[in-house]
């Protein structure tokens, strides 16, 4: 067989292979794009997505994301998903604006695009699923701190990056409800960039700078863990209470030692499940428009507001009474 004929056969086979893949389009391929791989929260969301896929039957989940929490990395991931011609992309964005052009391109090629957890600018997605309402979260994180400081005192916030969409909204909402908690005095907001070592150093800085600090509020799973470690290492257990949003599996130790008395989180398993259900239903023709109600399986239905956003459920408080039960789940 001549080289030319060999090459032609290979080319023909490639075309046949591509056609064959096209014919298998009945299985919906839904990509769950996360901020970065290797984060417990998103691994748990993937579990929920897989659960939804099993329930729906004809769904294949592609769980993917960049190594670092960068918008550039997510755009590379989105481009490769567009190239694979997936049916839907459900993304938790590192940057609401920077990923929008790439997602617009995906929508132009008939891919359903929704965002969940950390949103995308309106023009870059069909709908956004908030894990809870921002107002409720903002209130919850302040309430968690206030619950354990009856005499009031200084609190500080340790956030993720200064560009994290969701953290910024929650802190804004938290600041709004502060007047309802007269004793609580917010002294500083610092950024640990969702990096364990930087968050730890920022927490150390807070402990050193504010001698009357009663609580550190970290609305990020990386930050709360690092802060509770910093408080433990500084020998301040009992004096400073670390609270905020964390994962039960990572926080079990801190709750046991008393560095953290209670913290909150929605259920990321439910979130991944609901996002997958929504992506599936929209991809199958459900209209994402203001006022629409789109079913999300066992989580009920999402009602879209004027910005095509919906809230899933209330955040849930974890403490010594229930941590043992949840720490093995996520």
């Amino acid at each position, binding site marked *: 067989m001549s080289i030319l004929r060999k090459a032609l056969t290979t080319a023909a086979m490639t075309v046949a*292979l*591509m056609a064959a893949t096209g014919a298998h389009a009945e299985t919906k391929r839904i990509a769950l794009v996360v901020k970065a791989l290797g984060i417990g929260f998103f691994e748990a969301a993937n579990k929920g997505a897989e659960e939804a896929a099993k329930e729906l039957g004809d769904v294949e989940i592609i769980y*993917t994301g960049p190594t670092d929490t960068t918008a550039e990395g997510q755009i*590379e991931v989105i481009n490769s998903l567009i190239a694979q011609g997936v049916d839907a992309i459900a993304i938790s964005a590192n940057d609401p604006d920077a990923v929008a052009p790439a997602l617009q391109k995906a929508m132009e090629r008939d891919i359903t695009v929704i965002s969940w957890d950390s949103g995308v600018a309106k023009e870059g997605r069909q709908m956004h699923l908030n894990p809870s309402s921002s107002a409720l979260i903002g209130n919850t994180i302040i309430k968690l701190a206030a619950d354990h400081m009856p005499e009031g005192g200084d609190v500080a916030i340790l956030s993720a990056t200064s*560009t994290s969409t969701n953290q910024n909204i929650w802190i804004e909402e938290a600041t709004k409800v502060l007047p309802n908690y007269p004793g609580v005095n917010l002294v500083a907001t610092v950024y640990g960039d969702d990096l364990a070592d930087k968050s730890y150093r920022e927490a150390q800085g807070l402990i050193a700078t504010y001698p009357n600090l009663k609580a550190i509020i970290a609305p990020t799973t990386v930050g709360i863990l690092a802060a509770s470690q910093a408080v433990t290492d500084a020998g301040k257990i009992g004096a400073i209470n670390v609270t905020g949003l964390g994962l039960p599996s990572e926080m079990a130790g801190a709750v046991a030692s008393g560095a953290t008395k209670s913290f909150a989180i929605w259920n990321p398993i439910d979130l991944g499940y609901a996002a997958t259900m929504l992506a599936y239903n929209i991809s199958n023709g459900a209209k994402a428009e203001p006022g629409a109600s789109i079913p999300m399986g066992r989580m009920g239905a999402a009602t879209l507001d004027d910005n095509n956003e919906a809230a899933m459920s209330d955040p849930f408080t974890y403490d010594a009474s229930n941590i043992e039960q949840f720490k093995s789940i996520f």
Partner: protein
Amino acid sequence: MTTKPTPRVIPDRLTSPLSRALRSWEALLFAVAVAVFIANSFASPYFLNAWNLSDATFNFTEKAMIAFAMALLIIAGEIDLSVASIIALASTVMGLVMTAGFGTPEIVLAGLATGLACGALNGFFVARLGLPSIVVTIGTMSLFRGISYIVLGDQAFTGYPKDFAYFGQGYVWWVFSFELVLFAVLAIGFYILLHRTNFGRAVYAIGNNPTAALFSGIRVERVRFILFLLTGLMSGIAAVCLTSRLGSTRPSIATGMELEVVTMVVLGGVSILGGSGSIPGVVLAAIIMGLVTFGFGLLNVPGIVMSIFLGLLLIGTIALPRLAKGLRRG
């Protein structure tokens, strides 16, 4: 009887030009590029598609533009680690110019001018004051990005004019994007500059022995200054492309890109100690990195595996010539 001495032939090269070319670093890189291309074509049915390949080029074009200038800088024995921060600052200045109501030409000029100014500052410290470039540029790395953070905080510049999107999202002809064409033009430009001009010879001379270069009449200080200017300008050009592609500016733009650029240059066969390297090598390294990232992306391989692969490729790149040398000596 006396024997006439046979005329001795002293070859100007020990090996023929052809075998030299075949054994060169570029030949090895070319083989790797072809291998990666073939492996990708077999691994994924989506790889051999003109539009998908075109999308893949965005993974490396911006980094490669900077890598060309960085290659010259490293050959001359210097380094610039502030390139990603120059992008952040240039993009921020472009955002400010846009907010002030100016159009696309002014925005682009502002980006390029900022790049040049940053390069001039680096060049002043290194070439004029004689400070080590690694120290200076680690400093300016924080400085430039720090200014962007001061200007923007957790805000973003969005709403760039429609025609500005052309630089990062437009196509010159068919699948050939503006960025890809610019990459090709710059590659040729830098090839001529390094391999066909006196300036290029001077760069090699300085990298091999700056003192000898000085005594042979090369204006070392000026060449170094120009190289930093050039790197700044290329970062400015990359900033225009990246900002246009993202359609927005945040201070976290291009975080960590400096290391990817240096990786590209070293993989391209440029000696990190200075004195040797070529532009075709850098072009091939850019293409290999782009193809590997895109190919792995199509297979939904986690990003960390890609990083490990690129890391091994890089260590292999540096170790291989040494090992080969050791073997030859026996």
